[in-house]
């Protein structure tokens, strides 16, 4: 079958990135973790850094991402990935080090670690997957949950007097001196995916040129815990969610401060 296709299409226009393992993932249908994974793998290949990359996996739905991304990996306790990545990067400054974290992981329990990693200008790259909920534990409220959003622990909808407002991480980290690059992207349309790739490439480039800390926030989906069909989940990102969390580049340093 495969060979026949080759005959019909002499030039491969689509193939699996080398850094993405050929296995079935555990992600739910319509979950955008998979898209972010692919972008990550493609970018690792594009910069040809697979052999010198150490990834730091989060605790969240992406906890098993080392089963999909084919590089050296360390597991981190919930929220501590930026601290673990700091330990790795300081030990091997010439390696490429990234973390991949959910919104519970990065914006709740790990707020301190991410802010201080950014503030130290830690030369690491962070992929931040904001799906406005705690996917793995069954859809509880996250700091990024939208006002009015019903979750397992905000059954009447998030209310600012009780739970405060959804936290805007890309903007917040852009205010920190040590941050070299901070952007928010989405992956709900092909055009958005193209921009997301561009942002991840920029973020990689920052680390490779030693400009400093880089973060890309992905507005992701969690159809399972949102109680939505995949297409409706995508629409929610395109409408309500990106209305509150605007897409864009919030900070882009041209060169390292210390240069």
């Amino acid at each position: 079958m495969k060979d026949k296709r080759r005959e019909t299409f002499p030039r491969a226009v689509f193939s699996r990135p080398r850094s993405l393992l050929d296995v079935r993932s555990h992600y739910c249908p319509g979950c955008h973790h998979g898209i972010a994974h692919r972008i990550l793998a493609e970018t690792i290949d594009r910069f040809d850094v697979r052999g010198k990359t150490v990834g730091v996996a989060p605790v969240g739905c992406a906890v098993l991402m080392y089963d999909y991304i084919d590089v050296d990996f360390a597991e981190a306790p919930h929220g501590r990935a930026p601290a673990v990545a700091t330990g790795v990067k300081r030990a091997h400054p010439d390696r490429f080090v990234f973390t991949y974290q959910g919104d519970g992981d990065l914006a709740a329990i790990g707020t301190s670690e991410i802010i201080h990693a950014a503030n130290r200008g830690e030369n690491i790259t962070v992929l931040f997957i904001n799906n406005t909920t705690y996917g793995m534990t069954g859809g509880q409220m996250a700091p990024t949950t939208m006002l009015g959003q019903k979750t397992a622990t905000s059954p009447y909808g998030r209310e600012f007097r009780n739970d405060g407002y959804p936290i805007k991480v890309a903007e917040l980290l852009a205010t920190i001196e040590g941050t070299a690059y901070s952007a928010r992207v989405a992956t709900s349309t092909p055009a958005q995916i193209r921009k997301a790739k561009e942002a991840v490439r920029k973020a990689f480039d920052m680390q490779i040129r030693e400009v400093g800390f880089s973060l890309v926030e992905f507005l992701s989906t969690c159809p399972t815990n949102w109680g939505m069909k995949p297409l409706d989940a995508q629409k929610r990102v395109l409408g309500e969610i990106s209305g509150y969390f605007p897409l864009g580049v919030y900070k882009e340093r041209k060169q390292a401060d210390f240069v």
Partner: protein
Amino acid sequence: MTLAASGISRELMKGNEAICVGAIAAGCRFYYGYPITPQNDIPEYMAAHLPPIGGMFLQAESEVATINFLLGASASGKRVMTSSSGPGISLMQEGLSYMAGMELPAVIVNISRSGPGLGGIAPSQGDYFQAVKGGGHGGYRMPVLAPHSVQEMYSLTMRAFDLSDKYRNPAMILGDAVIGQMKEPFVPTPYLPTVSAEKPWALTGCAGRERRIVKSLYLKDDEIEVHNWKLHRKYTTMQKEEVLYESYCMDGARVVIVAFGTAARVSKTAIQVARREGIPVGMLRPVTLFPFPSREVNEAAGVADAILVIEMNTGQMLEDVRMSTRHHDKIRFLGKPCAIPTPEEILQEIRRLAGEIGAGR
């Protein structure tokens, strides 16, 4: 060979500084920490001495971050150390549990202070349980070394690095404010490695080899059970092979003190006076608190008439002494939570016990 002939001169230093000298001698070039009394000499020493020799000192934003810096550095194959005290060590417990589960070596120094809570900065041995029983979740152990002199602060730190590498497990130095702040001469004997420096599991990027994953998550079938038994076997081997203790004046001892760290140090003074008075008293000093010298305690308890456990807490190692022997009727306890027992207090207790069992004088 005499000291002079060996070319090694004595150093006069605080215990906390001797730890740093031992760590650097053992090849530790990565230190991470967060300020807390009474261990600040350690990060301050490392901040001054590591960068000039190409090492890395970094002050973390918390002890939670600290232990995860260690986790990352250790996973990268580096010898790495931190130090803290009570509340800071508590914050590290999650990370320590992960490191035990991930089988990552590192040296953690606890210059313990009194507690619970913010407690105080007085010397204490109140962290014994936390140190030796696996203070974090899930059930694990680590070698715990209890120095009672500046010399041992130096040499046991080197040993802690070897033990942690040998077993791929965190190891702890459990000191206290007295040992940490005390200045006395010590001999910086050369570091003689007892383990290979190879770390064929370290994360360095997978160029030219199979990729590596360092993790503690095991979801398939009985994987986690198998992993738990594997870890358990390491702890059993430690119990067989790594017990360290000192027998002090044990010849004909009918009263045997069991004490560690500062409590043992003070006990030595009291024992000397008591021996001059003709009281047959000695001491069995656990140097490793885990693994605990249970066999030696049991042997001593079989021969002696009384076992006097002395701790700067309300009785923690006491439980391990009880577990070691069935001679519970011989066991007495002198506890000074959050204070140093004076030689006089100990001497009084020795005399009282000697009278009780009709020994000496």
